């Protein structure tokens, strides 16, 4: 039992660390656009994002329930024994963190959420067996939302961008008021930060609750996480957001694509709406992917834009790869536990420590550059190519045609008059 207690503590610490890196990484998603378009001062933006992440974590715990009560079969846990299963959760977390760090170092687009799920699933399959996973639940609450959500967010952002532009479009040359979307972005980006809290902080709560249930410190009938778990996760993600924000601010503005206020507003509304709706139903999404989908969709919503398929393809492959890759790493970590028992756990713990120290050293040594500081979301904007001068709308074409016609008629009239005048003059002479 003492070993089990120790592993629970290790799981909690590692999970909170994961939560911290999640906040550290993802601030850019929520706050990159309003800072870039000049709607918010960087300091204010980061503080706002941290505060709203904290609030968001308290709003809904559906996603956490999906994780603690959905994807793992409880009977299988009972058969396997608490201690083994705790080690499996621990191994899963290590898989997630390792994969996250690898992708971060290699600059691959990735998702911390899918890394977490991948790690847990891979470790459970190795440690407990295939029966340990509720595949229906995994498919319907994790894998399918992962595939569908970025696409639906893109569709919604496309429609929203069209709406925003068509309502504010003017043909008489008077001010169109689109500048006002800068103000709007303060609210929509705040909503994204809030939505981020309702989905991402929950994932860590789910892992901790799962560990507590396994060891018997929480009744499995009780689906809500304990208040201290909610608070710890909310606080950690907010702290990560606050500290991580400064890295992004230093280099923002370099390498971000041309996002106009109206487009940014539409993209953020659709990101926030998609994440909030999914959180309410307990779908565990990758907020990064949803935001990327929205940025691409809203780029396509602007006139004359085309997709750069190569960039889009690279992003898509990154999305698809994360879950199985993290599962493989989680499975490897679990294999150590299965082979060597508690020694395996110790080796895993040392590995985790090495990874965390490496991550820390790397972040200290590495100067913040445009490549590593900008978020995947900003990068996904590159998947859409926008012309400097968009083609005219149909109405603009009609107006121009009518104007050209009127001009031609006027010219013909003037010429006709001049001819008549000349003819008259000729006849008079």
């Amino acid at each position, binding site marked *: 039992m003492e070993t089990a207690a120790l592993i629970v503590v290790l799981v909690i610490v590692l999970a909170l660390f994961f939560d911290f890196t999640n906040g550290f990484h993802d601030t850019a998603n929520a706050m990159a656009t309003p*800072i*870039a*378009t*000049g*709607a918010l*001062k*960087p300091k204010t933006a980061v503080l706002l994002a941290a505060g709203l992440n904290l609030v968001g974590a308290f*709003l*809904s*715990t*559906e996603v956490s329930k999906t994780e603690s009560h959905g994807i793992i079969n409880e009977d299988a846990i009972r058969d396997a024994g608490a201690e083994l299963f705790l080690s499996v959760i621990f191994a899963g977390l290590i898989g997630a963190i390792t994969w996250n760090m690898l992708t971060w170092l290699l600059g691959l687009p990735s998702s911390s959420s899918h890394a977490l799920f991948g790690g847990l699933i891979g470790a459970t399959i190795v440690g407990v067996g295939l029966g340990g996973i509720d*595949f*229906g639940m995994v*498919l*319907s609450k994790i894998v*399918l*939302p992962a595939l569908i*959500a970025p696409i*639906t967010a893109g*569709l*919604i952002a496309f*429609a*929203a961008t069209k*709406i925003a532009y068509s*309502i*504010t479009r003017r043909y008489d040359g*008077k*001010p*169109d*008021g*689109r*500048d*006002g*979307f*800068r*103000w*709007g972005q303060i609210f*929509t980006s705040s*909503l994204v930060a*809030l939505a981020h809290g*309702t989905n991402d902080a929950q994932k860590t709560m789910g892992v901790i609750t799962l560990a507590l249930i396994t060891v018997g410190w929480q009744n499995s009938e009780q689906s809500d996480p304990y208040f201290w778990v909610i608070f710890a996760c909310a606080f950690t993600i907010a702290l990560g957001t606050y500290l991580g924000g400064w890295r992004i601010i230093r280099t*923002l*503005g*370099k390498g*971000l694509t*041309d*996002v*106009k206020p*109206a487009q940014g*507003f*539409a993209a953020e*509304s*659709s990101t*926030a*709406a*998609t994440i*909030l*709706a999914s959180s*309410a*139903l307990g779908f565990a999404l990758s907020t990064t992917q949803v935001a990327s989908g929205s940025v691409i969709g809203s780029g396509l919503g602007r006139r004359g834009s085309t997709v750069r398929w190569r960039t889009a393809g690279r992003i898509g492959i990154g999305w698809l790869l994360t879950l199985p890759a993290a599962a493989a790493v989680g499975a490897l970590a679990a294999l150590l536990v299965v082979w060597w028992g508690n020694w395996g756990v110790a080796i895993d713990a040392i590995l985790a420590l090495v990874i965390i120290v490496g991550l820390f050293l790397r972040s200290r040594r590495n100067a913040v550059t445009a490549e590593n500081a900008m978020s995947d979301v900003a990068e996904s904007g590159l998947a859409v190519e926008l012309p400097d001068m968009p083609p005219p709308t149909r109405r603009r074409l009609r107006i121009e045609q009518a104007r050209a016609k009127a001009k031609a008629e006027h010219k013909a009239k003037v010429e006709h008059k001049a001819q008549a005048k000349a003819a008259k003059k000729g006849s008079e002479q």
Partner: protein
Amino acid sequence: MSVVIDWLAFVQVFAAALIGAAAIVTFYALGLRLLVRSGRAPVVSPAEFTDAITVITEKEARRAAKQAAKAARKSPLTDVQKRIALIGAYGCFALCALAVASGILLIVVGR
């Protein structure tokens, strides 16, 4: 092992998100349009952040403000029409805020 997938839930999420995002964007854009109509075109000068992309310079902001003022002077609308447009604009912004608040309330109450 039977795998049951709740497809309806996906449709629900898509519909809810679409309606929510469309409502926010429509009301906000309408509000901006009416604000311009009332002669108060929004000119937002950028915060202290100079090397960001697509941020207008102070000169551009001044020019935009001048243009807005000129357009407002030229606007043939009567004062009453302008006031109605302004009230409409604030109404639209309020509806936008209401849409957000009700969405969040639905999530909090729905759990």
